[in-house]
């Protein structure tokens, strides 16, 4: 039972340990996975930033490029419509032509609208001048397609020049061959809002040789700096070569470089139908911080999630453990209680057993040993004989005379008293030896210690008192004694000799006048 209880306790400890370790393993796995995911998230974020940045700049550049192209195409369309407004009357004299040109300028809000003839004479609303050395497109003869160019003469602010061919118009005997407008670059750029204050992204227009067309600063690159020269100092050789080639070929591309300790992203693309390149530049941190903000928020949420999960798990498993402990404690307490009850019961049982044993081994009438007790004792003595451990033993068999007669004459109560008296007699003499009532009227005494040494004397005293009792009518006991002899295998052999001698004494007493009370 105790073993079963220990086994159960071990099992419970094992389960508890398993639960705790399991919980710890789960928490460790969750934390590990989250950290791994965090590292991956950051790497993915950086890649996302790069992709988004390039996409963003590409979109910005495309939009701006479309805006530039749109403006140009709108102007070209206006110029064509304006040509249709010129009547033959307008072409009748210089004054009427100037007036017509003035009306066109007012109608479309142009600073300069001009016509050129096949001798490169330019007609504006206020002047007529030779344009061959001022405008390169006038050298095309004939001019078939629109020409988009810039004009930079002698320190005057750069002008964007849009020219379209003219057909079937004559003035002062000469064919008109071109119509063009000049747009101040600054006004052009303002319309495109390239220079928005507090903007974190920068735009610019460059020629393919890297010269700034807009005369605006481009982020950290000043307006009067050549973009390609600047980039040559900021980019590795191979990347700069690619940039230069792309510019020359009018191809889109991108580059990253460091400026004043921060990373800048540059994207460039050609403006259709021009020799210009639109450039966009943003600091890497612009988008990086935006996305990093989301990424950090996600990571924070993950961290919170992990923390909450860990706390919940800890609380949960802690509660489970406590509950288990409590339950286990209860069980243990129950087990202890059971053990205590068991012990108590065992003690009670032991006591009962003792009582039972006492009952089993004690004659209730005489309080001498019972037959059961004699049997147990006999077994022990026989074991001692077999083991050669028995040295001395004497057995006295005592038998009451006349018990039946008394029972029959006076009743069993008087008979029981007779037996008790005899028992007192025997026990009073054999004070140091166990006395067993082995029958209704039979007693066996196993002499030991002083009684064995005084056995002859005691037997003689017993016989004397018995003979005296014959006269007084008190208990008459026939006793016979035998000693253990070396050849005796068992106590029974000694008992039989003692019993024989008891019978001889009984005869002797009978002859002395003991009543036959059997």
């Amino acid at each position, binding site marked *: 039972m105790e073993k079963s209880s220990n086994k159960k306790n071990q099992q419970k400890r094992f389960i508890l340990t398993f639960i705790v370790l399991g919980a710890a393993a789960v928490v460790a796995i969750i934390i590990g996975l989250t950290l791994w995911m965090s590292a991956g998230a950051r790497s993915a974020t950086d890649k996302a930033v790069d992709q988004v940045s390039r996409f963003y700049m590409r979109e910005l550049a495309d939009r701006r490029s479309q805006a530039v192209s749109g403006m140009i195409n709108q102007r070209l369309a206006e110029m064509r419509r304006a040509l249709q407004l010129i009547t033959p009357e307008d072409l009748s004299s210089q004054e009427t032509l100037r007036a017509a040109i003035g009306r066109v300028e007012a109608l479309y809000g142009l600073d300069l609208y001009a016509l050129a003839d096949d001798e490169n004479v330019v007609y504006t609303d*206020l*002047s007529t001048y030779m344009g061959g050395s001022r405008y390169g497109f006038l050298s095309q003869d004939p001019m078939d397609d629109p020409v988009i160019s810039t004009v930079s003469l002698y*320190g005057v602010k750069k002008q964007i020049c849009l020219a379209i061919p003219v057909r079937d118009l004559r003035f002062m005997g000469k064919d008109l061959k071109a119509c063009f407008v000049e747009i101040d670059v600054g006004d052009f750029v303002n319309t495109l809002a390239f220079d928005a204050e507090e903007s974190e992204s920068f735009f610019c227009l460059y020629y393919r040789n890297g010269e700034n067309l807009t005369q605006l600063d481009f982020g950290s690159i000043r307006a009067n700096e050549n973009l390609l020269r600047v980039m040559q100092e900021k980019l590795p050789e191979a990347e700069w070569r690619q940039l230069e080639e792309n510019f020359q070929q009018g191809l889109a591309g991108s580059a990253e470089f460091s400026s004043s300790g921060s990373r800048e992203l540059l994207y460039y693309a050609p403006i259709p139908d021009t020799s210009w390149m639109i450039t966009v530049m943003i600091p890497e941190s612009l988008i990086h911080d935006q996305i990093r903000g989301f990424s950090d928020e996600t990571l924070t949420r993950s961290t919170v999630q992990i923390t909450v999960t860990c706390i919940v798990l800890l609380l949960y498993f802690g509660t489970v453990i406590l509950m288990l402990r409590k339950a286990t404690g209860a069980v243990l307490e129950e087990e202890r209680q059971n053990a205590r009850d068991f012990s108590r019961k065992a003690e009670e049982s032991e006591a009962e057993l003792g009582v039972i044993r006492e009952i089993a081994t004690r004659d209730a009438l005489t309080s001498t040993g019972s037959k059961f007790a004699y049997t147990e004792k006999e077994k022990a003595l026989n074991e001692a004989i077999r083991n050669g451990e028995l040295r001395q033993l004497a057995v006295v068999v005592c038998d009451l005379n006349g018990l039946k007669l008394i029972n029959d004459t006076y009743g069993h109560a008087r008979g029981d008293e007779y037996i008790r008296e005899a028992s007192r007699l025997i026990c009073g003499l054999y004070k140091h030896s166990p006395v067993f009532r082995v029958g209704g009227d039979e007693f066996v005494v196993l002499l030991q210690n002083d009684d064995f040494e005084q056995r002859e004397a005691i037997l003689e005293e017993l016989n004397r008192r018995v003979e005296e009792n014959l006269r007084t009518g008190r208990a008459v006991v026939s006793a016979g004694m035998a000693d253990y002899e070396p050849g005796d295998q068992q106590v029974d052999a000694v008992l039989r000799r003692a019993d024989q001698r008891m019978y001889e004494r009984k005869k002797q007493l009978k002859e002395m006048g003991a009543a036959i009370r059997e």
Partner: protein
Amino acid sequence: MEHFFTHGHCTLFRRAAICTLVLGMIFLAGMAGGCRAFAEPAGDTEPAVNFNRTLDDYVPQKDRYNFYFTYKIVHPWWDAVAMGIEDAQRQYLDRGIAVTYEYMAPEKADAEDQKARLQRAAEGGYDVIGVDVADEAVISPVLDSLVESGLKVMTFSSSDASPGCRRIAYVGNTHNYEDGVLLTEALCEKLGYRGRVAVLVGTRGAPCHEDRAQGARDTVGKYPEMEIAAVEYDQDDIQTAYELTRQILRDTDDLAGIICCNMSNPVGAARAVAESGRDIVIVGMDHDREALHFLKDGVIYCLGVQDCYSIGFDTLQVAVKIADGVLPGTVYPEKTEERTTVIYQKDAETILEMLYGEIQ
């Protein structure tokens, strides 16, 4: 010098004026002043070209003017002058005064063409006719006849009419001879006052070119160990100047320098010299972009940059006054002198940026 004093075109008035100017130049040069100024960033000294011009206080009497201007040849130099005219025109327009004009020239310098243009312009009803004289001998009489017919005539930009011409006023370079002298002095000093040099004049008969060439000749003539090996006329054409220079280089093995008297021939000469790889000192005039690059690279030694912008700006202002009938005097001088600035290699990038917005 002797040649100069016996030159057919020299009059007593001109001799006196030139002598006075030469003496004045020597004095001023010693004072580190006058025309020999370097192009400096704005704020330190006056720039070679002043783009920050505003109209003077004169109040025009009309709200509309119409002018005719003609010049030697279609050429970027006169396009630069036009920038000044256009700016003045814009400022007049801001004041509510409409100034219209024609600004015409032939593709090739031709005095007869200019003469014909002037004669046509005489019928055009213009308030003022302005001319950059292609050939003072041919054009000066035409101008006189226009004045006699009641027209108001002025000269402008690089070349005035002959002394005594009845044109009303001149706006432009009044010191072409001195410019030639200055440039040639710089070249002679560079060469250590020895060696053989060539002169590329420009357009035959063009007063400014001829005056500069004369200044060059006179200067070289001062130094016994120097000699003029060749004098050629490129007619203000770069390609012609290039080919002439190549020929000179072939013909003159020991050529040490070239004096270029207009805007085109420094470019042609520099191309030819650069190709040859020979070490030859080139001096020239004006602000051609390619010439400025040659200056930056050291192929050209120095350039005399005229303030073309101011020439054009002042021409229109003077034309308005002339149209109002105001004669030269206190309101404006008979000759409005426009400055020339000699620039060297170290000034090239500044001028390139200033004139062409070019950053190196």
